[in-house]
């Protein structure tokens, strides 16, 4: 089998795995053929296309063994903290403790996709009164009820305030089912008023200093609660070390994103990039291994870029993707239609931006929390998207609506308008449920239309330049 980068099926990965094994390629303890995860119910893998590198294999195996790691942590007596909604801030603090493992139960929103609805989590959510009018994150309720996916955390911490109503309502339902939740407030990030002391946040937003101080007070509450849980004090030195480790992950991702999104030929498929980005939010329950996985992936990408190799055609339409998809297969679909990802905003850009290391650590974390794109206005978010479109040279924007999500009802139009006012590039909205099989033709048509529009615009501008 050729070592040239390409997207392959699960069956092809099995053959490739044998080949890699024969050459004595290193496998971590969670390694193995990808197809073994199908036996555990991850049926969607059979329909996905994967990158064929050993680095991607490690990434996938790392992702798909997270539940095992959490159970091992429980067995080893480590405390498990379920952090909910803030996407990237509280885990930095949690992993600064010796014996705390933090993860996002929110991640259960991908279980209906990966198991092709086989786990029955959405039906359980239905039975609890949380029906399909809510975001697919409602699958989290089912995961708590069955206890079949992740161990029930020793503590649940959830941000509320400037968050989506779906999640807040679902977390409250969870609380009502006997899972106590530690609530903390993230205020709506607003623009500083004239003469009001302001702070420039990581990622480029700004906020009044009093809001940063408020969030810091909330993080102090969380810190105290975690200290009590862990029986360990978290001093500034430990928290600063935790921030430095998190920044190591963020720097790797920054480099990876820049290379993957700007290379002439796309060096890594969008699905692997999505998973790599997700590692930033809670390190897939193993911070050190996250760093190793990302380093390996980055090396692979560097090698491909320097060799001029890629997984897609050089003329692939350069698309900026907004919001994560509930069905992972849609990332494949864009590439099947002739597109590639050049820039993303998956609701957690604040988990990708470096945390300031020259500030008291809690203040730095407070700034990071407040830089959450969802905590501010859709206008702010659109402007950040515009900045990144320019940085990565995207030629179109795809806004992928999350079914039922409270923010998706109104934000798409604002983002679309601002992007078009700024760049005059096409913007398309699609809606992606957990399993898109029944609507694949529609999605296919819409994505093809976007890609064709981009390519025809490229040809037109090329002709204009030649004249």
């Amino acid at each position, binding site marked *: 089998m050729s070592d040239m980068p390409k997207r392959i099926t699960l069956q092809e990965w099995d053959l490739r795995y044998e080949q890699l094994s024969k050459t004595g390629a290193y496998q971590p303890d969670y390694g193995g053929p990808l197809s073994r995860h199908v036996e555990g119910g991850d049926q969607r893998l059979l329909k996905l296309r994967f990158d064929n590198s050993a680095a991607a294999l490690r990434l996938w195996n790392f992702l798909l063994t997270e539940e095992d790691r959490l159970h091992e942590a429980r067995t080893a007596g480590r405390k498990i903290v379920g952090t909910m909604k803030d996407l990237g801030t509280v885990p930095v603090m949690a992993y600064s403790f010796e014996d705390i493992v933090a993860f996002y139960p929110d991640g259960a929103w991908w279980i209906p996709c990966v198991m092709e609805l086989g786990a029955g989590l959405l039906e359980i959510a239905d039975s*609890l*009164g*949380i029906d399909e*009018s*809510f975001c697919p994150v409602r699958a989290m309720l089912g995961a708590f009820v069955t206890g079949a996916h992740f161990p029930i955390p020793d503590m649940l911490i*959830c941000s*509320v*305030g*400037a*968050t*989506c*109503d*779906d999640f*807040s*309502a*679902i*977390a*409250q*339902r969870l*609380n*009502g089912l006997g899972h106590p*939740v530690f*609530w*903390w*407030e993230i*205020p*709506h990030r*607003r623009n500083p*008023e004239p003469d009001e002391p302001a702070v420039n946040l990581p990622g480029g937003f700004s906020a009044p200093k*009093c809001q940063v101080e*408020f969030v810091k*007070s*909330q993080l102090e*509450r969380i810190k105290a609660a975690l200290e009590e849980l862990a029986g360990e004090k978290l001093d500034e030195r430990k928290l600063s070390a935790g921030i430095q480790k998190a920044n190591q992950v963020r720097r790797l991702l920054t480099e990876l994103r820049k290379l993957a999104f700007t290379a002439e030929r796309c060096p890594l498929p969008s699905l692997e990039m999505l998973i790599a980005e997700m590692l930033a939010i809670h390190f897939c329950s193993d911070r050190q291994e996250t760093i190793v996985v990302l380093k390996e992936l980055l090396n692979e990408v560097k090698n491909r870029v320097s060799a001029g190799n890629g997984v897609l055609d050089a003329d692939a339409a350069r698309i900026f993707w907004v919001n994560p998809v509930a069905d992972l297969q849609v990332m494949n679909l864009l590439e099947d239609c002739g597109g590639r990802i050049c820039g993303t905003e998956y609701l957690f850009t604040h988990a990708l931006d470096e945390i300031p290391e020259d500030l008291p650590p809690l203040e730095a974390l407070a700034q990071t929390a407040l830089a959450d794109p969802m905590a501010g*206005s*859709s*206008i702010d978010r659109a402007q950040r998207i515009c900045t990144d479109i320019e940085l990565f040279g995207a030629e179109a924007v795809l806004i992928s*609506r999350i079914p*039922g*999500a*409270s*923010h*998706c*009802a*109104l*934000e*798409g*139009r*604002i983002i679309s*308008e601002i992007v078009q006012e700024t760049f005059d590039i096409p913007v398309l909205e699609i809606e992606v449920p957990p399993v898109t099989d029944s609507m694949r033709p529609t999605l296919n048509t819409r994505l093809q239309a976007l890609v064709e529009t981009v390519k025809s615009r490229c040809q037109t501008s090329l002709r204009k330049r030649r004249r």
Partner: protein
Amino acid sequence: MKAVIYTCPYVPAEWIAAHGLRASRLLLDRVDSTSMFIRTEGVCPFVRSFISEAMNNKDAEGVIVTTVCDQMRRVFDILVRKCELPAFLMNVPNTWQNIESQKLYVDELKRLGRFLSRLGGKSPSNDMLINIMLEYDTARATVLTARECLPARKYAEAIAAFGRDGPDQTTNRVRDTELQISGVSLAIVGGPLMKQDLDLFDIIEQSGGRIVLDATETGERGLCSKFDRRRLHEEPLMELANSYFGGICDASRRPNSGLYRWLEAEFDSRNVQGIIFCRHLWCDMWHAELRRLKDWTDLPVLDIDTAGDNETDGYRSINRIRAFLEMLQ
């Protein structure tokens, strides 16, 4: 005098009035989804109507939106871009049990004060604020007392009129008392009602029921608690915050156990025999409470959901209410 318009119960009318402006808490008119410039899929009908009102209200000089609900928070973005009316987004924390959240609410009132000053208002003295709070408190007590002698619809309208116009005409509005009609005692529970939703009160009465507790956001539940007169004279702004932020129970609170404690007390004191649960389509906050409420209470609960612009909705609701009351009689 032009008005400062809003719908959220956590916006204190007294604070606006103390700045010399007219506070007008709106009971919204339903709008046809086709009349909106925005796509309507996923947008709560109440939010749609609010946008329409803010865009078209000729008597307003400012609009206040709060962060209590995510869709309303995002309405602010639309208003900033599409509406000429000056808009203010007030952070109302969902958490309430720690001092920082309470302080944030007070700080937001102060920031609202600066917005009101920019609209032409004047920062009030303590005496001015105290007088206005007393005036509102008295009028609110008058409205609340009228519950026992007004049909439920008129009572709901009196509360709405008090929110829209302030205390001036309160006594007149509740003076012409009428005999209370009999029937199965019901509570109506949920988020905000719109004008057309008040028809539900008539339908319920015609079907043999009577609303003895209006626990909607636009009803009694959305009124702040009575001011403590001593604290009011010592620190009026703090007492205002205490009565609004600390006195209004809502589904959006985290945790929202206070809402259930309040409901339990009110259900008991008013001998409630059944619950009409009223919610707008796409309102996640209240929708999520429906099953919880059913699990929590032994009382029968009827779910009435509205999409906002469909006549079929109305007929369906009538039939469901009739059937519900037939079972309870």
